[in-house]
């Protein structure tokens, strides 16, 4: 049975120094699991996420990460991620190494990781500067047309953490809506942890092609209602856009940020935090 309390699952599956992917493309971002990482003071992580978003701004600001693989590091529709900027521009609270790509490249790298290939090929990076600063961006020649195409190493993290709508009693997990790269990220990882909104006896009638991760692809399933807040879970609660707007002020200043993290994360539980969500 893969069901475990979140603190136990984080303790068992995520170790200092691991490469940890936490995916969810705007939707289903696993905030509760990230907060648990912060409470357990995990250190020296290489974090992987296409869109770092507030979840990695918090992890980076709390000093959890030594390196970051990403493709777009802003607060969507709002502006900067101030904690990410502070780490890159002023090495606060510690220096961070960047492994920067484009969305197309990381999406392809996830696909390649899930497919157990060592690299992905894409029509990408034509005429731009990123390959000059990231030596992981290389190329291959098509054995048929002679064309040069860009390559990116497959993503194969130690652990992937995602949030999903629900699990059945057997521990199979169903996602729907904006599904992002989560299936790929789970299948590409050595270990996978999923937080879910609820457990149901049976998924019941569903699309024949529903996005379901069988229990045997997962290391742990943790029931954490509201575990994606202030992101959202389609069918459960809405994205808290007001919070995303408010974060700009909270994260701009180091002390304000630390006070907020202490009051809302370090001194609190996942249940406390999730209480703020608004039902869809």
């Amino acid at each position, binding site marked *: 049975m893969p069901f475990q309390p979140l603190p136990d699952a984080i303790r068992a599956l995520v170790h200092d120094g691991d490469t940890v992917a936490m995916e969810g*493309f*705007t*939707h289903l971002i696993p905030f509760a699991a990230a907060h648990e990482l912060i409470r357990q003071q995990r250190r020296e992580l290489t974090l992987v996420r*296409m*869109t770092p978003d507030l979840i990695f701004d918090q992890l980076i600001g709390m000093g959890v990460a030594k390196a970051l693989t*990403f*493709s*777009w*590091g*802003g607060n*969507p*529709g*709002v502006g*900067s*991620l101030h904690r*990410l*900027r502070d780490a*890159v*521009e002023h090495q606060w609270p510690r220096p961070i190494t960047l492994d*920067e*790509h*484009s*969305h*197309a490249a990381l*999406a*392809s790298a*996830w*696909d390649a990781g899930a497919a157990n290939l060592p690299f992905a090929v*894409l*029509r*990408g*990076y*034509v*005429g*731009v*500067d*990123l390959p000059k*600063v990231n030596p992981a961006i290389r190329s291959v020649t098509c054995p048929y047309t002679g*064309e*040069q195409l860009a390559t990116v190493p497959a993503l194969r993290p130690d652990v992937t953490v995602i949030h999903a709508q629900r699990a059945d009693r057997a521990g199979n997990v169903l996602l729907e*809506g*904006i*599904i*992002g*790269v989560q*299936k*790929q990220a789970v299948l590409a990882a050595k270990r996978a942890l999923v937080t879910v909104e609820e457990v149901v006896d049976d998924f019941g009638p569903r699309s024949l092609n529903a996005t379901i991760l069988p229990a045997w692809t997962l290391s742990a399933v943790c029931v954490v209602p509201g575990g994606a807040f202030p992101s*959202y879970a*389609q069918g459960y609660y*809405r*994205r*808290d*856009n*007001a919070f*995303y*707007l408010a974060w700009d002020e909270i994260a701009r200043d180091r002390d304000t940020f630390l006070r907020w993290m202490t009051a809302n994360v370090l001194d609190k539980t996942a249940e406390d935090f999730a209480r703020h969500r*608004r039902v*869809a």
Partner: protein
Amino acid sequence: MTPATPTEVMTVVAARALRSSDVCFVGIGAPSAACNLARLTHAPGITLIYESGTIGTEPQVLPLSIGDGELCETALTTVSVPEMFRYWLQGGRITVGFLGGAQIDRFANLNTTVVGPYARPKVRLPGGGGAPEIAALCQQVFITMSLGARAFVPMLDFITSLGHGTGGDHRARLGLTTRGPTRVITDGCVLEPDPETKELTVTSLHEGVTREQVQAKCGWPLRFAPQLPTTPTPGAGELEVLRALHERTDRAHRGSPS
């Protein structure tokens, strides 16, 4: 009705350039407003695609992020992000891509990565996201940006996405068959690449804006088209729809139940 603000003009001009048959890769901010304005006015058949995987969305409220629930709920369907970038963008299915940036140069190359050197940036910007491949793989690209000497610069600190490179047939020499940026829509004027040199050229000035005002907000000596008409002004109908859209949007995002 109060007259159109410069930003509203920018949005309306961008919207008018879209047709019902277009398949648009929509970004957040001005592009999203322009694409949805087009959909709600003269281009009801337009297909809007957001990089989060939503295809054929018809939001009643502008999304704050590219992955708001509204986009998915109103979409024809939603695919995974690898599929979106591999089959739909790289697959060559997008007719118009929208981009903006912190910096643009005279060949419509864009920087959204860093101000200053990459290794020790003065300002770390969000980075490329979808932009490098949107710029290369959409059939054409529209850029919306407000004028300003810090944005319209003679030399980019970093080329995040390719416009016309160093001009001329640079894109073709790199193997690209797409048109690249075909217009840059600003709050003061519209610029289009010269057919030969591909240098951005002012092709219309918004109502009440002078050449000197535009030049003052651009870091390189601007070329102006020989015929320089006034950009057609937004109609009352367009403005009404746009303002209602923004009003609904603000109400929704500031947290009061919509």
